């Protein structure tokens, strides 16, 4: 138990992993290890981009500290949102592979839907900055 807690603290201190590091993850197909190319913030959470181009959300990476650091919707600028919308429409126009869930289009679309939901969902349940004027 003590060891487990110490390991968790160590993991949190060294999170996220470095570029080029071998990471364990749960892809859409199976559990596996892969080389990390880049960690990138999306509109809500961090995405881990693998060397082979697949995009895996942080919560599917083994050892990810809980709770994950997610952005507040007020942190996303209008420009960032608009760029994301343009990018998604452009990627959709170029065609997406309906069988490859870990493709960047699906990863970005997932985050855009989560972000848009949080932004416009009916008031009532108190979620970050929803009712900020």
């Amino acid at each position: 138990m003590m060891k487990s807690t110490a390991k968790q603290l160590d993991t949190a201190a060294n999170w996220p992993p470095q570029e080029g590091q071998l990471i364990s993850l749960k892809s859409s197909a199976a559990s596996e290890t892969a080389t990390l190319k880049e960690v990138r913030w999306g509109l809500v959470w961090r995405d881990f981009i693998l060397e082979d181009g697949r995009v895996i959300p942080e919560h599917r990476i083994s050892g990810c500290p809980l709770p994950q650091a997610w952005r507040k919707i007020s942190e996303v600028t209008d420009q960032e949102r608009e760029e994301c919308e343009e990018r998604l429409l452009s990627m959709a126009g170029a065609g997406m592979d309906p069988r490859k869930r870990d493709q960047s289009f699906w990863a970005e679309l997932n985050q855009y839907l989560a972000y848009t939901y949080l932004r416009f969902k009916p008031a009532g349940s108190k979620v970050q900055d929803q009712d900020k004027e």
Partner: protein
Amino acid sequence: MSRSDDEPDELQVWRVLSEAGLVEIRLDEFAERIRDVKRIVTGRLRDLLDFNNRVQERESAAYSLGTLKGLELKVQANAPKPPDPPKI
């Protein structure tokens, strides 16, 4: 030992998104999730029509709705075709 003040918010956001099925969307669920979010944006847009001073938010919601519509059409057009039923 005090935890971050943000922790309850983060957990709450996770719960809200999970309940809406928006944390892990399966490939065959995207079209439906887009429709769900479109409904939310449409509802918000309807509310905003009652306010004269929230033009920017209204325009932004309308733009998002247009984006969602465009994405919905593309996703539907790219949906994998179900196999043909066996001929009897």
